[in-house]
């Protein structure tokens, strides 16, 4: 099985998540080739063939152009499977490639079971096993589902692709940086929330420190906001923000229904609470029975090591 792995490139850099494509291909046991519309300097560290098209010429993103380039590489390699990351680049480009190849596309694959692809659905609550009916296939893989272990190493063998001008009805104008604004928890991938178990205002900084260590945002339950320990913009719950992070850490939060309703969509929930029977335990993937004020600083220290 020959897999063509489509790497991602943005603002002059290769996106590290591209290496997950290699991990996926290895799991699949496929022959790996990569394609990148980027630059030589950003070519992935991989002991294999990398088709390279110059982003300076073809643009950092133009679906019509990128589609042609990927198709060119797929044709040359006679790839059986074209693999993308399930990202704003991948889900935009993959269906175009799939349609051109008359290939089945499976999106957001989370694992391979007996050679079959398992995709996630229903907001991550369910799974489906997909069978394919076409000769070729296009796959997008869920970010983080296939982790690349260790440091990427190798020297790619570059084969340049230099197709003629490709017409397009689409024009890339530019990027817009993320605004530095008041807390938008709805986009956060990690949230660490403070509840009443935190005790008092001064202790909130310990929770904020953990949030920072995990690269996430500080959240809060209602009573904490009411008490003035944290600003309302951090509130999670029915009268605050409804969030769906990859990781939600609830510190000293009992799990009142209004709070649960605001964070139930989290992928993975860790609850730290003195009370083994706190309602938050019903939605937590991990319940740590401990005093928040003892556990959290210890966890933060461990993460920063």
């Amino acid at each position: 099985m020959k897999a063509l792995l489509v790497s991602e490139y943005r603002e002059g850099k290769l996106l590290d998540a591209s290496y997950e494509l290699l991990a996926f291909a290895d799991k699949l046991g496929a022959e790996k080739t990569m394609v990148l519309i980027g630059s030589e300097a950003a070519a992935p560290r991989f002991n294999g063939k990398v088709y390279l098209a110059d982003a300076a010429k073809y643009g950092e993103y133009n679906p019509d152009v990128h589609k042609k380039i990927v198709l060119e590489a797929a044709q040359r390699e006679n790839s059986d499977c074209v693999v993308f990351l399930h990202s704003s680049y991948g889900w935009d480009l993959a269906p175009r490639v799939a349609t051109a190849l008359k290939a089945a596309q499976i999106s957001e694959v989370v694992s391979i079971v007996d050679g079959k692809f398992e995709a996630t659905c229903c907001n991550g609550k369910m799974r489906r096993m997909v069978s394919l009916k076409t000769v070729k296939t296009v796959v997008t893989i869920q970010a983080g589902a296939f982790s690349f272990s260790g440091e990427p190493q190798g020297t790619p063998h570059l084969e340049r692709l230099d197709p003629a001008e490709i017409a397009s009805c689409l024009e890339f104008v530019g990027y817009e940086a993320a605004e530095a604004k008041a807390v938008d928890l709805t986009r956060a991938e990690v949230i660490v929330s403070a509840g009443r178990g935190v005790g008092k205002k001064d202790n909130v900084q310990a929770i904020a420190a953990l949030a920072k260590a995990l690269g996430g945002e500080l959240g809060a339950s209602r009573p904490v906001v009411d008490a003035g320990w944290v600003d309302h913009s951090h509130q999670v719950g029915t009268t605050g923000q409804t969030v769906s992070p990859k990781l939600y850490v609830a510190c000293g939060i009992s799990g009142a229904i209004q709070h649960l309703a605001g964070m139930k969509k989290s992928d993975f929930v860790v609850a730290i609470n003195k009370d083994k029977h706190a309602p938050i335990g019903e939605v937590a993937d991990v319940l740590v029975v401990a005093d928040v004020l003892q556990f959290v600083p210890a966890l933060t220290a461990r993460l920063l090591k």
Partner: protein
Amino acid sequence: MEATREIYWNVGHGVVWPMYVFSFIAMAVCVYGFYRRLVVYRQGKRLNRFDRLRVRVNLVFRNVLAQTRVLRVLGPGFIHALFFWGFGFLFIGTLLVMAQADIFQPLFGVVFLKGTFYKLFSLVLDVAGLVALVMLVGLQVRRFFAKPEGLETIRDDYVVHALLFTILATGFVVEGVRMAATEIRNNPNLSLYSPVGMLVGKPFVGMKLDALFLTHKALWWFHFFLAMGFIAVIPFTKLRHIFTTSANYLFTDLAPKGTISTINLEDEGAAQFGAAKVADLTWKDIFDADACTSCKRCQDRCPAFATGKPLSPMKMVKQIGEAAFSNPQAGLIEAVSQDALWACTTCRACQEICPANIEHVNKILEMRRNLSLMEGVFAGDEVRTATSNVEVNGNPFGLAFAARGEWAVGLDVKVMEQDSDVDILYFVGCYASFDKRNREIARNFIKICNAARVRVGILSKEEKCCGEPMRKLGNEYLYQMTAAENIERIKGYGVKKIVTTCPHCFNTLGRDYKDLGLELDVEHYSTFVHGLITSKRLKLKPEPFEFTYHDSCYLGRYMDIFDAPRAILTTAGGRLTEMAKSGSESFCCGAGGGRIVAEEKIGTRINVERVKMAEATGAPLLVSNCPFCLTMFEDGIKTGDCEGKLKALDLAEIIAARIGG
């Protein structure tokens, strides 16, 4: 000597026709003034408040003559009542004089103002006049010197007070001067029956007769023209309340408390829902502004006003009047402001106390309906989320509707879909179904039913939100949709009796659902359980405890249920320390009017305010019987730092813990 006096003494009978002419003019001006106002009231929609006239007239007598609602607030109420009665007697006195002087004496030669009757007449009027004058001064001291907070004094007040005072004062001076000339020296015994006149007249006794006559004449005409002025300005000043406030009793809403108009959603011609301008309100809504005397009793009791929200029921009523009279095309909602409109908890404290019979709540609801149904505007994003949740899953939390009956798993309660042979349908409500703390109410209620051998069933996942919070927030459409689903199920099972642990569901199912086709026996569990106890189907083993009790708005003010819960709690062994604001003066927990789903962003927290009132009683336990109140109090205890000092419990929890005996 004869106990009588000569009517028209000194001024002569010649005054009669100018008197009538001027009176006629004054009254014409008065009538015209009211007619102009009538035109403005008519801008509002039609409303029938003329049925059951006997009941209405009765209300007028009771409230106007006996001043019952005015007397609800004792201090100023008493002063006003006495002033009113004093002035009333003077008015009757004037009518008697007119009757004799202009009808009985000239036409039939009958004189009844003589002898003992005259003495009584004289004395009563003097006393009445003095009481009126003293009370008036009392009111002036209150308004101009004591200046109670929130009491607005405008130019109108100065004019009216000056007029009334001068009329009363000159009345006595005219009498005094007359008596100085006729009675004090010549008939001292008689003058004793006009004691005030006698006192006022004494200084004039030495005066030369000519001077006396002149002074009397001048003062008489002055007093007369003041009185004419009084009559003429009635419709143009606060004095109009003599008629408008009195008439407002005639126009009482005779429907059960809390009745809201049910919009006909089938009416394809309807283009406007709710109120954006005065023309969208009823004539009564505009008339209410005229009946309002700005006494501020409503404002004093409004929980939103008390905690810094921009809502004043009194101000809102006045703003409607202002718009109606000066700018009918004005947008009401901009004038009142959305923040004020959304702040209302529909606690009804304003309406319950209003001595002018004004209906504040439904005006707010009509404006909310405009915001919700015509503009798609919500009190906040969280309210929109709750609304969508009710649409999709039949509860404001957005939890899967299929899980609604899970609290009952393992309990002895039937699910109607499987077995509908029950004594009562327990309509659980959203909070008791899904909220962890409130599930205790549901579980304990089942325990109570089991003990009393009442066969109880629930709709479980077929139950949807009763729709009340959405209705109160103005979303009549969603309310009717969710209500229709409930009604279809309830009717389908042939339910005879519903009991609910939530006063909001209680009001909605028992009263509001009638307009949508459901009429059956709906009871709140407090009176239901009280019935079980009195009929000995349920026995309690009392265990002593100290508590204070919160009368929830939708049980107390709306349904007048105050005694049954207290009786139960006493039977259960409780010793009650009442809060200062209890019974019909209870202070809202803050969750009514749909605000249970809204975030309180302005001012201080209503629930904390109430929790502090409970704490002040010294009782360790705050008992309520509404899931909204319980939720508010649990929250308020934490936020108000009363943890450890005060605990919140529902009535059901106390009863269930004492079953036996």
